């Protein structure tokens, strides 16, 4: 087991496209690290550079203390799980699992012992003599995982390994992956475009956008203290509510509402993008929080809780960063109705009576207000 360290890693493709720009990352030994970002942000390229499948254009890659920047993939002791699984079609499951050991000239007895062990951990014993073609999607996924585990490598590299499974299987596989990592404790770099997967799996999450590292922190810190508008809009589901607002004299005002500004903004005087998480509201006003009155437009019932969506009398925040972040989550979610007003989503407990069209008074947690620079998107608190 070893950590992974990237120093100013850059990838420039022929033709001048820069896929990864000056990325510094440090993965601790045994850590589960997730690379997340919208498609085309360079996360897969970065992973392939760690594997040695893609040469770097600049910077160094360390595996443990060893500089492996110029090593071939077969000289780096890492295992990879591919999005398509990439099982060898003409080999049985047993030979698929043992292939990496065979290539590294592990003795036959040892090889068979390890294959049997991994097969039993993953529940693949009864499938060992089948070919990949005779397996279901979930079984193939487990074989792909087993092929990585059996080698006992210094690190696992996973490229969206769950994205080909159906939604239900994906959730259960996610939990099993967490368990597996607890048991094996192998350093893991996991690539995904799904921020929910990133938040639930990662001990630390690196958010990438356009080849540049935005923020690298624990899921909690990404959620609580996003460094910029992109991370704020990208992390969290439903997404953070955003509206243009102006700060002056210790108050934030937007769409005819005035709220006391958070302490960090008490003596600024400027226009900002204000962000409030859907969970930053509460139905009652008896806790001393400032309130605003809204008219629910849509109510989504989820059983224990409900999402209440309402419109604000303010234009929609449509900066590039927000666009990129939201597009990543709902790639083909075209708008049914033209939206040019800002809409807020609020999560309320199911016991609060809400009905569409009935005015509703909501309290806002002043500690959960975020403000971002309108031009740079940098967090202001």
């Amino acid at each position: 087991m070893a950590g992974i360290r990237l120093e100013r890693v850059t990838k420039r493709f022929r033709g001048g496209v820069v896929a990864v720009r000056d990325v510094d990352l440090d993965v601790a030994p045994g850590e589960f690290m997730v690379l997340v970002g919208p498609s085309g942000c360079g996360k897969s390229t970065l992973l392939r550079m760690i594997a040695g499948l893609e040469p770097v254009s600049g910077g160094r890659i360390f595996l443990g203390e060893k500089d492996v920047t110029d090593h071939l993939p077969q000289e780096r002791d890492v295992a990879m799980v591919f999005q398509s699984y990439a099982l060898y079609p003409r080999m049985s499951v047993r030979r698929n699992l043992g292939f990496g050991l065979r290539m590294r000239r592990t003795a036959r007895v040892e090889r068979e012992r390890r294959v049997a062990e991994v097969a039993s951990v993953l529940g693949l014993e009864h499938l060992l003599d089948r070919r990949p073609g005779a397996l279901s999607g979930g079984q193939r996924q487990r074989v792909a995982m087993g092929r990585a585990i059996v080698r006992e490598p210094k690190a696992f590299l996973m490229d969206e390994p769950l994205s080909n499974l159906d939604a239900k299987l994906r959730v259960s596989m996610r939990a099993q992956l967490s368990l597996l990592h607890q048991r094996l404790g192998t350093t893991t770099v996991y690539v995904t475009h799904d921020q929910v997967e990133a938040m639930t799996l990662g001990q630390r999450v690196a958010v990438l956008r356009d080849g540049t590292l935005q923020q690298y922190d624990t899921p909690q810190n990404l959620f609580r203290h996003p460094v910029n508008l992109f991370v704020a809009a990208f992390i969290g589901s439903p997404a953070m509510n955003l509206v243009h607002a102006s700060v002056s004299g210790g108050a934030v005002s937007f769409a005819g509402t005035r709220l006391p500004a958070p302490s960090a903004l008490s003596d600024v005087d400027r226009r900002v993008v204000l962000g409030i998480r859907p969970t930053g509201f509460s139905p009652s006003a008896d806790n001393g929080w400032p309130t605003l009155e809204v008219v629910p437009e849509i109510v989504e019932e989820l059983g224990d809780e409900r999402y209440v969506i309402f419109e604000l009398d303010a234009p929609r925040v449509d900066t590039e960063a927000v666009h990129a972040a939201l597009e990543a989550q709902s790639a083909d979610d075209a708008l049914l109705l033209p939206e040019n007003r800002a809409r807020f989503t609020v999560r309320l407990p199911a016991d609060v009576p809400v009905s569409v069209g009935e005015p509703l008074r909501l309290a806002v947690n002043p500690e959960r207000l975020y403000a971002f620079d309108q031009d740079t998107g940098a967090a202001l608190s």
Partner: protein
Amino acid sequence: MRAALVVGKYVALLAFVCFFLMPVYVMVITALKDPAQVSVARMWDLPDTVSLDGFRAVWPKLQNGFVNSVLLAVPVSVVSALLGAANGFVLSKWRFPGADFVFPLILFGMFIPYQSVLIPMVQLMSTVGLQGGLDGLILVHIIYGLPITTLIFRSYFTGISDELIDAAKVDGAGMLRTFLYVALPIAPPAFAVAMIWQFTSAWNDFLFGVMLTSTDYWPITVALNNIAGGQQVPFHQVMASALLACVPTLLVYVLLGRFFMRGLMAGALKG
């Protein structure tokens, strides 16, 4: 209206089939006729009695050429398919700087007509002492086959997922072992195509065979020409020779043709 169209289509197709099968029909029935029944006037009639007389008469003259052609076509198809597979692999999945330049260069070989290289080739082969025997002819056919087999395998491997090759690399296989353990086992469909092609072209070749080999090593096409080209040869013997000469290529097609089917990649990828 639709039904009429469908019927019309099948009538047309059937007519084409008959048109193409006519010479085959004449060849088969004439080969099976008794010498007394062979005549131009009755060429379309079925034989009254089936006679293998023609086959018996020509086999001794064809036998040697037949064996030579087998000894020629089998190694040619196997070796040029293997070399083509290696070429195709490095040109598609294990690319090297300059691959885009080398590939068209190899393809260019396909467009060089036999006749244009014939004289220098015969001179070269006699200089290096490979003229007269089968070995030289085999070598020439292997080299002449490389462009097409390279093209076949390159196209086939291009359709294979890159992730499969990447997986082998990460698993610790170098170029040679990735080729042997991962690429070759999934290539039978390409082998079938390349080997049918190479077997047929080596078997059917006349020009190189007649120029490069001495009498003892003449392939069957030359032997066939000697029978058919004579002045007073009975038709049933000519047809019997022709039938014998085309049996192996038909056999290769029937045996390897079933590998044409798709589906050998099943299960490698998400599916």
